[in-house]
């Protein structure tokens, strides 16, 4: 079909869909931002409250009990410096778990705005992309605030510490996009999301070499860390924050693994959404 033989209303449609085809994901993100406005206060309050609380509890409170410095691979640092990159990654991880779970279920089921979007020129894939864009910004804001408090507590000795912001956001996305893909498959929530929070999110936060080095776990449990995006993100954060000594190939593995999970989760979520919205 060429433009010359096309009927005028079809040609008109082709022009009208140009912008949505290109920018659809950004329109969806814009919508999500508007929705987030309702709980900006909560985001800011937790964004400030939780770094203050955790950095104090861990870096001041617990540090008073952890007698010596924490030594890993021959480099010993204070407990605060050791734990700060983990706390940053955890904050991103938790924010992602929150934003990619119930709000996604909400959009598909409880208040099916995704179905509404689907009737517009926007495609299911773009709806997913829009969520990723909006949540990335949200995680970045949370992580940014966290990082400021880390600086204030003197928890970042290295000059490339700010790079850990990137690894934190990537940690959130690596887990979050997979979670979104899973939630998108749920026809009904009879507690599945709460179970994910209890039996995946919480154990991962506690056992991913975050508040103590992974090597403290018995050898038969250390695989938790290797699979956990949080461990990879935390270790990466430690490398840039205080020069945690590890072979370069391992750092590359961290980045590659996080990117891989992000891409796989993202693509899966797009497929699930396309199937769910086109029935």
């Amino acid at each position, binding site marked *: 079909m060429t433009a010359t033989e096309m009927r005028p209303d079809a040609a008109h449609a082709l022009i009208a869909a140009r912008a949505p085809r290109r920018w659809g994901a950004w329109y969806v993100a814009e919508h999500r931002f508007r929705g987030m406005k309702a*709980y900006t*206060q*909560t985001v800011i*309050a*937790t964004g400030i*409250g*939780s770094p203050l*609380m*955790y950095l104090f*509890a861990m870096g*001041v*409170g*617990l540090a*008073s*009990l*952890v*007698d010596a410095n*924490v030594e890993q691979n021959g480099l010993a640092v204070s*407990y605060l410096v050791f734990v700060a990159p983990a706390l940053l990654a955890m904050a991103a991880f938790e924010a992602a778990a929150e934003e990619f779970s119930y709000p996604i279920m909400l959009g598909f089921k409880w208040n099916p705005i995704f179905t509404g979007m689907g009737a517009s020129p926007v495609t299911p894939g773009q709806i997913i992309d829009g969520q990723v864009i909006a949540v990335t910004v949200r995680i970045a804001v949370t992580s940014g605030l966290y990082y400021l408090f880390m600086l204030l507590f003197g928890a970042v000795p290295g000059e490339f510490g700010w790079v850990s912001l990137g690894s934190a956001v990537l940690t959130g996305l690596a887990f979050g996009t997979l979670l979104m893909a899973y939630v998108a498959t749920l026809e009904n929530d*009879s*507690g599945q999301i*709460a*179970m994910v929070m*209890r*039996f995946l999110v*919480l*154990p991962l936060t*506690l*056992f991913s070499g975050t*508040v*103590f080095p992974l090597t*403290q*776990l018995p050898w038969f449990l250390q695989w938790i860390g290797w699979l956990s995006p949080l461990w990879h993100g935390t270790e990466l954060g430690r490398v840039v924050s205080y020069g945690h000594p590890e072979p370069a190939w391992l750092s590359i593995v961290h980045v590659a693994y996080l990117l891989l999970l992000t891409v796989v989760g993202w693509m899966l979520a797009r497929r699930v959404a396309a199937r769910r919205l086109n029935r």
Partner: protein
Amino acid sequence: MSVQIAPARRSVNGPSALYAGNARSVMLRGWRATASTNWLVMVSGFFEPIFYLLSMGIGLGALVGNVEGPGGTEIPYAAFIAPALLAVAAMNGAVYDSTWNVFFKIKFSKIYEGMLATSLGPFDIALGEISLALIRGAMYAFGFMVVMQVLGLNLSWWALLAFPAVLLIASGFASFGMAVTSYMKTFQHMDWINFILMPMFMFSATFFPLSVYPPDVQFVIQALPLWHGVELVRGLTTGAVEMGMLWHVLYFAVMSLVGIVFTTRRLRALFLD
């Protein structure tokens, strides 16, 4: 219990009678609703403190070594935080049931209005809901104590008394939580509960002793309920028992009483007046 607080004069106005001696039916309804919808979620709540205990107690414990227990003796870090997590488990179980659950019932499902239309009075509801929260807290606590025993973290026979102590703590949080919830209007308000619970959880001498704070801050924390719960339970499971612990008991007894009186009044104001 305190049935007498329902003044006889009130029962003259028929429907606003406070107590019909039937809190059990309120509980039964609650159990049925839980059992049919999300018992798995409820049971899973039991694992949360265990994850904390394993991570902080065993993993982090290796970095910390021994710490000074309540009697001045050195005890392993896991034995230090386990009683605190036990008190927290009781708090969480009780608070969840008495806040979120009650909030939904008041705001969305209008269950109380239906109940109050029968012979049930607000005191039945308050007592029933609080007992329900208590049972849940008790289940979590019992499971957790078994785990403590297996890991060798109960250092004394006094630990047996930790169980009733935990029930008392749960009843304090449950009745107070329900009273507070009856004033809540929106979800944002409900978020505040988390804003209060989280720091209380982190800072009530749960993971590290109070001595890291300046005296003023110590005083504030000692005014909050969780600290009393942690101290009480820790004294019992480590066997460092002393008369002063009765103050903690008194604290929760008063908290329970104040909570239930306020809840009953509020329910009456909300639905009957």
